[in-house]
């Protein structure tokens, strides 16, 4: 320790290095614009939000008093909150599971060599590139209760006797949102998993063929264990993203009908910008933030355990 310190002093004392130091800003300066904007737009607002969540304050009136955990207590006894909480959990679980499973299936298909594979991969980027607002409107039209093509197709093959109001009925609205989200996000999931599959050495496939493994055994005993870390990382990002869903719900149903699709983000947004309850809304946002951390930690623990098992 002491010796290296002396050595580094000696180095800085060399004339060439002194000139270098004088002319050069330290490398940390290069990070400044990035860290400053992230600090100003993410870190500081989160802290400010934490502070606001402890206060009874609105945008409309000048009242602003410190009420400690009052907002949080109010939230816990608020049936609207639990309603949104349940929908958010339903949506997060369903969409993450569906997207991971479908994404894995698509990735397995695409990991085979076949002509036109590039076209399929390119086509899969289309849903990802489309703005979510456009996706929402698009599914609003596809699933329209009167002239939607989904109703028409299902009626033609006899699956439904008459038109279903997918978006306007409390029974189907959340399901429609999940379908729209699966459409938009599965391809991306598949591409992530495909990239993971392609890092598995081809020699392992040859080895399992020589050992007489069939396709299923090869998948289950060779590829799946090796893919697990990627699978966990991808589904963690997906779950974190699904938990904060906003655009799709806000544009497709606005949280309705009869609050049947209200999720935490839309509820928070309405508290902040319609009811102008800054304190209450900030408390909701803070609860969401903490939940996200919990989700990330749970996945992180799983990931570490799996990584240790695989021995990476």
């Amino acid at each position: 320790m002491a010796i290296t310190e002396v050595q580094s002093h000696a180095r800085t004392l060399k004339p060439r290095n002194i000139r270098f130091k004088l002319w050069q800003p330290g490398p940390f300066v290069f990070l400044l614009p990035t860290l400053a904007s992230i600090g100003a737009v993410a870190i500081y607002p989160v802290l400010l939000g934490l502070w606001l969540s402890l206060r009874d304050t609105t945008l409309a009136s000048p009242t602003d008093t410190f009420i400690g955990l009052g907002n949080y207590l109010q939230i816990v006894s608020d049936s609207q909150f639990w309603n949104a909480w349940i929908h958010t959990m339903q949506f997060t679980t369903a969409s993450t599971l569906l997207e991971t499973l479908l994404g894995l299936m698509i990735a397995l298909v695409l990991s085979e060599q076949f002509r036109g594979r590039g076209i399929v991969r390119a086509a899969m980027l289309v849903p990802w590139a489309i703005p979510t607002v456009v996706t929402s409107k698009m599914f609003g039209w596809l699933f329209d209760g009167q002239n939607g093509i989904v109703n028409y197709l299902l009626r033609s093959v006899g699956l439904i006797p008459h038109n279903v109001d997918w978006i306007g009925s409390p029974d189907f609205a959340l399901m429609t949102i999940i379908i729209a989200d699966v459409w938009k996000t599965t391809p991306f999931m598949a591409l992530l998993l495909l990239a993971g599959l392609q890092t598995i050495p081809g020699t392992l496939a040859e080895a399992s063929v020589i050992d007489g493994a069939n396709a299923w055994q090869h998948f289950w005993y060779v590829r799946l264990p090796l893919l697990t870390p990627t699978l966990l990382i991808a589904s963690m990002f997906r779950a974190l993203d699904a938990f904060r869903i906003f655009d799709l719900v806000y544009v497709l149903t606005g949280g309705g009908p009869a609050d049947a699709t209200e999720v935490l983000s839309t509820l928070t947004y309405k508290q902040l910008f319609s009811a102008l309850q800054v304190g209450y809304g900030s408390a909701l946002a803070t609860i969401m933030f903490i939940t996200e951390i919990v989700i990330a930690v749970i996945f992180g623990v799983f990931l570490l355990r799996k990584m240790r098992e695989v021995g990476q």
Partner: protein
Amino acid sequence: MSNMAIAQRKLRQGFTFPSRGRILIYLCALVIVCWSVGPFLWQMSTSLQPDRELLSSTPRLIPYPITIEHFVNIFAAKSFHRYIINSVIVTITTTFLCLLFGSIAAYALARLDIRGRFRVLGFILGVSMFPQIAIVGPLYVLGSNFGWLDTYRVLIVIYLALGLPLVTWVLFGYFRSIPQTIDEAARIDGARPLTIFFRIILPMSLPAVVTTGLLCFIAAWNEFMFALAFTSDINHQTVPVGIANFTGLHYVPWGDIAAASVVVTLPLVIMVLVFQQHIISGLTGGAVKE
């Protein structure tokens, strides 16, 4: 067996009917393609059909007769070009600043002597996982204190911070892959870090920079919640807000919505298809390496 040998054997055998597994794979591929592009194709078809066709009891997949009334309508009656101009200004500025700041940061993290570089990188990435709803309220309070509501700059500053983690992360990975000897050679020739960066590393990394810029562009172009919260008039609202507000008094103008969707999405789709190889490696690189 080499490809050559396989090809020769195939030639000898003549045409062989593909096996059941092959057929299954092609069938799956077909389903994937239809599922991915089908809804957008239907949107395109919708945008070219007159309202009375859209409201008829049997939908027509191929538009006939073709009409451009919806495209005329969105520009003439709904001033859709205003939203497009706003979006272009915000998005281009954001992308430029993101690339400038993010690439310098990535360069410093990847190639200069920074203590705890992975901790800094982890911090930047961790921030990108913040739920955006957690910052929209406080930022709104700050924005209104500064008098920044209904401005381009408030959106640019926010999108900049939201885009920087991705840009830094992707470019960090790319810069790491360039041999360190190049820097050393330049440094021996007397070049300073910033010179090395702008004259050597950046030009070498142009494909990665273009891809990252595209990712940044798409993210800013598609962002909805902040634009919705911070802008309230047509002079600053962006395209997603514009489309979300497309509602008729008595019925939903599906044709107009479809036309607007096509106008703002087709350029994106074309760009994505052109750069697809780079985008896929840029997007998936981070999750798979480690």
